[in-house]
């Protein structure tokens, strides 16, 4: 994986020193809160409902055992013994003290980590497919490009005060697992007829209060033009994006209000001015960065394992795990394993310090010291030998991260909601917990099959509810929590925004409503292989609305 060079190390250390001094000046009264707030936000430090919250960057969701162990140490030493993996592949600590944060950033810098680009109106950390560098369906590893974008965007002087935050996601596989079409810029790696690498480019996707699917602006952007073209998009956005209204400041609104063709012409005109300048990517530089992401040496092995087959026969929980939590690896005999951070009835994305230590150990023992965080709030060991699965599984069971539910109804994305977030209008996590309990038996989950439920506790949509097969949005109505359901959303390569089913449900009724939807699906699907989303797309919303609200 990527290693800091001297520039990166001194850059991160400088930022830590600056922040240390900023905190000192704040505590001495030399900086007011109004002056300090943008500075702390540039270092990932928020003030939330109960306390400060520190969001630590895990660029493109990739880290190693040593880094994970440091996160465990921070949870244990400076927080309350846990961390929370987010929908942007980062980790949040919910209880740090302001006075401790410079020390925390120092400790992070020791393992090449930081909290830069996790907040503020800048280009945020680039996210990527969590199976990057391992997936069988991959055209190329997207992370070298994510890292190149990181180097370009970190502290980019022109783009440090954008109209609003700006999110870029990249996937290297045709099966989009990085939700690229709901990002400000979405990049899908592809090859042209000559076999050269390039990108399909989407602009103006996003969720929040105005959900939109990104519009394609390029079918094939050559590799060498990645930075110049990105810079052109950002320049157009920085110049024309609205600054008069925070809620209309994202690039999706600009795309919508300007019109795709005019905006594309603006981007292309800007691009023409700079494409042969300093931002043109030299091939040797791409290959140099790529070398950092060289896969571990994996020898081709048998495609099946007798040990796995035998264990599957004798252990239903293991069989369930193997059926759902493995992703095909490009090297025969290996697999990418999802460690579920969604225990039945548990809190989506939470990991205790002890669990983080176990994950670090297991990555070193079974996974060539590579770990990924998914935007679905799970942890992945991307390179595991098939025959190691039984031993790995035993250790996961002991650490309570062995639920075989990846992609199933209990693998729920939920934002922190009103239990933690100052912006939330309703709680998310308790709804996720109750759904998880309702559907948590292995047989029922497996029978239902793939079903992505995503829950947000306010209209800002951190829980991606618009792209849930079933989405749940928590609102406040007359002082009570109240949940609106959307149907038919998807964040993959066939992305769609879910449609509101009808009037919302009280906290007491919302889980019953979900069960009604699930039962309706089970009753009308053509076969077990037809997923909820496929069935919904085939029959439309009517049968589901009728089940929820009766005949109109």
């Amino acid at each position, binding site marked *: 994986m990527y290693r800091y060079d001297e520039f990166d190390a001194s850059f991160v250390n400088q930022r830590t020193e600056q922040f240390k001094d900023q905190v000192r000046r704040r505590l001495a009264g030399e900086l007011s809160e109004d002056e300090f707030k943008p500075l702390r936000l540039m270092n990932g430090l928020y003030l939330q409902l*109960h306390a400060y919250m520190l969001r630590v960057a895990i660029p493109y969701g990739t880290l190693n055992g040593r880094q994970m162990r440091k996160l465990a140490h921070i949870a244990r030493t400076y927080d309350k013994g846990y961390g929370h993996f987010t929908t942007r592949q980062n980790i949040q600590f919910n209880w740090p*003290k302001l006075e401790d944060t410079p020390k925390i950033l120092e400790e992070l810098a020791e393992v090449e980590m930081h909290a830069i680009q996790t907040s503020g109106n800048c280009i945020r950390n680039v996210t990527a497919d969590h199976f990057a560098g391992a997936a069988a369906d991959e055209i190329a590893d997207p992370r070298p490009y994510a890292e190149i974008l990181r180097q370009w965007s970190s502290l980019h002087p022109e783009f440090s005060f954008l109209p609003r935050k700006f999110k870029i996601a990249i996937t290297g596989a045709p099966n989009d697992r990085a939700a690229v079409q709901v990002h400000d810029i979405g990049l899908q790696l592809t090859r042209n007829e000559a076999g050269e690498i390039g990108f399909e480019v989407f602009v103006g996707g996003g969720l929040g209060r105005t959900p939109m699917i990104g519009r394609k602006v390029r079918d094939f952007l050559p590799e060498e033009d990645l930075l110049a073209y990105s810079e052109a998009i950002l320049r157009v956005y920085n110049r024309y994006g609205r600054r008069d209204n925070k809620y209309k400041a994202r690039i999706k609104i600009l795309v919508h209000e300007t019109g795709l063709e005019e905006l594309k012409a603006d981007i292309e005109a800007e691009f023409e001015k700079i494409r042969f300048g300093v931002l043109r990517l030299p091939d040797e530089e791409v290959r140099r960065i790529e070398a950092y992401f060289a896969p571990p040496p994996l020898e081709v092995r048998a495609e099946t394992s007798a040990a796995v087959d035998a264990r599957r026969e004798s252990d239903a929980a293991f069989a369930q795990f193997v059926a759902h939590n493995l992703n095909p690896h490009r090297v025969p005999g290996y697999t990418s394993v999802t460690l579920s951070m969604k225990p039945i009835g548990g809190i989506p994305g939470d990991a205790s310090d002890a669990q983080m230590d176990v994950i670090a150990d297991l990555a070193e023992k079974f996974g060539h010291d590579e770990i990924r965080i998914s935007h679905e709030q799970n942890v992945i060991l991307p390179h595991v030998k098939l025959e190691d699965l039984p031993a790995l599984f035993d250790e996961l069971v002991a650490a309570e991260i062995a639920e075989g539910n990846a992609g199933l109804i209990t693998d729920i994305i939920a934002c922190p909601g*009103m239990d*933690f977030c100052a912006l939330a209008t309703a709680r998310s996590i*308790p709804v996720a917990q109750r759904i998880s309990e309702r559907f948590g038996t292995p047989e029922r989950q497996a029978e239902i099959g793939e079903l992505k439920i995503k829950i947000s506790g306010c209209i800002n949509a951190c829980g991606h509810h618009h792209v849930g097969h079933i989405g749940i949005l928590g609102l406040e109505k007359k002082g009570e929590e109240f949940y609106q359901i959307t149907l038919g959303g998807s964040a993959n390569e066939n992305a769609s925004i879910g449609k509101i089913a009808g009037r919302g449900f009280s906290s007491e009724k919302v889980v019953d409503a979900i069960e009604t939807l699930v039962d309706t699906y089970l009753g009308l699907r053509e076969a077990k292989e037809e997923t909820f989303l496929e069935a919904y797309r085939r029959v439309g919303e009517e049968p589901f609305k009728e089940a929820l609200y009766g005949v109109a």
Partner: protein
Amino acid sequence: MKVITANRLLNGDVVWLGAGKTWVERITLAEVFDGTDAVADALAVGAAAEKNQEVVGVYEMDVAVEDGVIVPVRLRERIRAAGPTTHPNLGKQAQAVSA
């Protein structure tokens, strides 16, 4: 009826304005203010404490007094006063058990 709340600057703890212009850790110890003038005066105390690097994010919130106990009107403030409902071992509710 209102109370004034904020977070301590240094550690982020949720606090309320109590008697004698002190910041207290329990909402039950907060001072209740009634009427526009009383609330405005209390907010001015808060603003001074903010300027003094004692607290941040000062605001007023609605409360009711039930059986002599101060209870926030909004669920958000009830959660803020107790701690996350998902982690009963954390926040004020955890301290209350050991106190």
